[in-house]
């Protein structure tokens, strides 16, 4: 798969930590130049950039709150200024409030929807301009919460459902421009976000209930994202690929 990404430019929103970091590294390891968008943690972005540069590609970090359409414009201006084009957009940055539906207020809803769902819309609009005439790939990162009802996950779950629907609309609308649009939905992934749980809770909740025998790691997701951006995936459009080691289809009480 290496050669087809050489000379390509990939933008990864939220690309400095967790899943985004693994995706940034993956594209760099395949020879693509990478733009890492970050929001709150500059040292993490600089660290990831340093690691990626060591792989021999060009990397640029940009600070932007992608929940704000004006900032999204500035982010893409920066991509254009730095690399003059864009081949791959990975809409990965996410945020959200952990509240029940009864506790959720308008502010928490808007914040979550704007960063997780609306950002894909405005990022895709800008990305399409930078892909004009050549085509490109857009992949967004969803979660199993788009289809399940998980505790205090309503805001994020609904935003991810919107993201998946938007992925389908973009896939059709951007197909004539030779832009492939898809999504990847992961179950709980071993990242900093999981630090909220105790090791015992994680073991009980995740490892033991994953048919594949272990929790999903960021590199699993990054590999699928790279696949969706490869020529091999050209005919996959508007789909959400589930990367969960079988969690979402496993019977609760096992088969024995």
């Amino acid at each position: 798969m290496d050669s087809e990404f050489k000379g390509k430019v990939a933008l990864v929103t939220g690309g400095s930590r967790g899943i985004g970091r693994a995706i940034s590294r993956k594209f760099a390891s395949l020879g693509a130049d990478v733009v890492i968008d970050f929001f709150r943690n500059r040292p993490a972005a600089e660290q990831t950039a340093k690691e990626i540069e060591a792989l021999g590609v060009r990397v640029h970090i940009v600070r932007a709150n992608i929940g704000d359409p004006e900032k999204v414009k500035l982010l893409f201006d920066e991509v254009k200024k730095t690399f003059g084009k864009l081949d791959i957009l990975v809409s990965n940055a996410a945020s959200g409030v952990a509240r029940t539906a009864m506790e959720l207020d308008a502010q928490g809803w808007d914040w979550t929807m704007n960063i997780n769902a609306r950002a894909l819309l405005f990022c895709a609009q800008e990305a399409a301009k930078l892909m004009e005439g050549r085509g490109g790939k857009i992949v967004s990162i969803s979660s199993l919460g788009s289809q399940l009802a998980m505790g205090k996950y309503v805001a994020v779950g609904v935003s991810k459902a919107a993201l998946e629907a938007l992925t389908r609309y973009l896939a059709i609308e951007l197909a004539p421009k030779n832009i492939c649009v898809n999504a990847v939905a992961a179950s709980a992934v071993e990242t900093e976000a999981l630090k909220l749980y105790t090791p015992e809770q994680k073991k009980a909740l995740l490892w033991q209930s994953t048919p594949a025998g272990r929790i999903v790691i960021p590199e699993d997701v990054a590999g699928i994202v790279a696949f969706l951006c490869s020529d091999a995936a050209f005919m996959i459009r508007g789909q959400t690929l589930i990367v969960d080691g079988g969690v979402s289809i496993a019977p609760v009480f096992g088969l024995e």
Partner: protein
Amino acid sequence: MASAVEEKIKEIITGIVHCEGRALTPTTTWKDLKADSLDLVQVLVQLEETYGIEISDTDAEKLKSFGDLVAYIEGIVAAKAKAG
């Protein structure tokens, strides 16, 4: 008397955090206001945009009370004014 910076920060916080009548004093903490991590991020974003600055997470973690925050922003505003 409250400074302009203090008044502005108060306006930003009360616009985001549901203070429910709790008075903001220099010793008021985020915990006192029952602010969650999302409230904090939103306050930081508005402060950054208002003053054209970037507040690192490392700095943000040290700002436990309203007084800490006011002193921090006043320090930055003063430094910017000095730098011209």
